[in-house]
Each structure stands twice: as C-alpha cells, then as structure tokens.
C-alpha cells in the first residue's frame, strides 16, 4: 500500500525540499561552511583542528565545495624559519556565492522546520 500524499494536512512546499542545496545538506560540508562563514580566511590546519576531520575527509569535502564554487583555495609558498625550503600553504575562504548559498540553505531549513512545528502544534 502506497502512502497517500496529503499536502493540505502537511503544508510543506515540495519545491522548498527540492531546492535544498544537496552540497550543503551533507553534515560535514555544512560544518566546514559554518566555520568559514565567520572567517575571512583560514588554512587547512585551523579547519582540521576545529572540525576534527582527517586530512582526507577535509580535502575531499573542500574539493566538492570548490567544484561548485562555494570555496576558494589560494596556494602560496611561505618561507619557514630555520629552513631554506619554502613550504606550500593553502588559504581557504568562502566565496560570495558560497555565502549566499549558505544563507539560502539556512532560510530553507528554517522555513521547513517552522512549517513542521506549525503542523505538530495544529
């Protein structure tokens, strides 16, 4: 038996659900974006410590976020003290598109949760 769709008794706009950003809906990526939202710029070490993710996990999620244009990675060679070699350092920042996407995601989720709670109260 297939459940009947009753949009009037649970008035969630299906379009809102469809429009939820799948990239951001992943909890790990959401956590990364949430940190980047309060930051102007950071590096891998900081994000790794704050999120508690492994290098691999962090790198793969940042790859996905970079692919969709939500984060920007900028590489620079920095001179370390007591070393003749320069070390690569990657600076990570949220793009304007990423910031807007995060705002949209928050609004969609708030909208859904509000509608859900209105239904349960009703």
């Amino acid at each position, binding site marked *: 038996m297939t459940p009947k769709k009753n949009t009037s008794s649970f008035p969630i706009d299906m379009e809102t659900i469809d429009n939820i950003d799948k990239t951001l809906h992943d909890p790990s990526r959401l956590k990364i974006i*949430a940190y980047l939202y309060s930051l102007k710029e950071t590096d891998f*070490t900081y994000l790794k410590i704050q999120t508690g993710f492994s290098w691999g996990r962090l790198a793969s999620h940042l790859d996905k976020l970079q692919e969709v244009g939500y984060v920007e990675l900028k590489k620079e060679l920095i001179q370390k003290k007591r070393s003749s070699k320069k070390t690569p350092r990657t600076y990570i920042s949220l793009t304007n598109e990423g910031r807007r996407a995060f705002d949209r995601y928050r609004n969609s989720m708030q909208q859904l949760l509000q509608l859900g709670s209105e239904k349960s109260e009703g």
Partner: protein
Amino acid sequence: MSDSHKNINLKEISQKVYRNDYIDGFTFIFLGAFLLLTAGVINLHPVFMSLLIVAFIAFFQLSKVLRNRYTYPRIGYFKVKTDEPKKLISGILLFTSIVLIVFFLLLFTFAGVDPEAFYNIENWYRFLPIYFGLVMFGPSLDIVDKTGQRKYYGLGMVSTILGLLIVTMNFQNAKFGFTIYLLLLGSISCIIGGITFVRFIKKYPIIIDSEQPEMQEENDDSQEKY
C-alpha cells in the same frame, strides 16, 4: 533532520571562531600598551597626540607579526570576519554619544554637579575616568556577544569601577588622576593579556609542519594536492 545536523549549532561555531581571536592574549596586551602610552602622551604637548595614531598602526602591524610567530603555528592560520567599517564607526559613535548623554544627565541631576563647572577643562579630566570606564562597556558587550563568554564583562566592569574609585579619590590635579587611571587600567590589561599568552603557549604546542605535503605524502595522498 539527522542527528549530525542537530549537532551543528551555528551560533556556537561562530562563538568558537571569535573566541579563538582572543585566545592568545595579544588583544589585551596591545590594549594595555596603548593605554600606558596614552597616559604618557596626555602629559606632553598636544602635538604628541598624533603619536597615538602612529602607535595604533604600529601595534596592529606588530600583532600580525606576533600572531604569525606564536599563534598560527599553534592553532592554524585564521582571520575572523570583521564588521564593515561603516557599521563599526556608526556603532561606536552611537554608543559613545548615548553614554555621554546618560553620563551628563546623571552628573547634573543625581550628583548635583553645576553645568557651569564644565567650562573648566580640569573638571573634564576629573570625570573622564568614569566616562572612559562606561565607554569600555561597548567593546565589552560586543566581545561577550561574539564569543559567548561572560568573563569579558570584566573589561567594562573593571574600567568603570576603577574610574569610579579614581573620581572619588578627588586628586588635586585631575589630569594626574586620569593619568593614574590609564596607568592602572593599562597595567591590568597587560597583565591579563600576558597571563593569557603564557597559558596559551603552554596549552597549545607548535604543530610541526602538518601542512607540508612532502612529509606525509606516503601516508595520506590527499595532502599532496594542498
């Protein structure tokens, strides 16, 4: 909503980020140093007031150097997103103006100070410590709001209580009283900043080149790219 989504508290994350901005104590060390310098400058010719602008820029640059040397190697590099300058300046002006109005109302109504007394610059110096203390509640409230840590109310409270004490001590030379106030507040701020810095250094050891791809490429391919 999944459990992992529930665990992501955006407010908490934002507060954690801002807390890290004060974790090394440099903010309070430089605030203290600036107050100590002001204490010296106000006793010199007014032309030396421009030194404060130079010092402000110099302290800002110095804090960058010190953070590169002590903070970032321990917790990673980060730059917190700050308020827009326009919003920041209008906020400061609004807050200082409100404090000034409230301050004058209190003086003229409850404390019974004659408004004529304010034609004398000496009286401005006399009440400056308490006004300055009340103004310090501005940054204090802002830091508490951003970090979620109530201990930063202390900045406004200590500044105000100290200002009140200096005003009630009624120094014969009011400028001297304000100088003492700045010296005390500056010293307290430097000491708190210094203690915070020492605790930070002890708590967070230097991370040994965790971002160097050549060091770990055998163990973790993902680092090779970065």
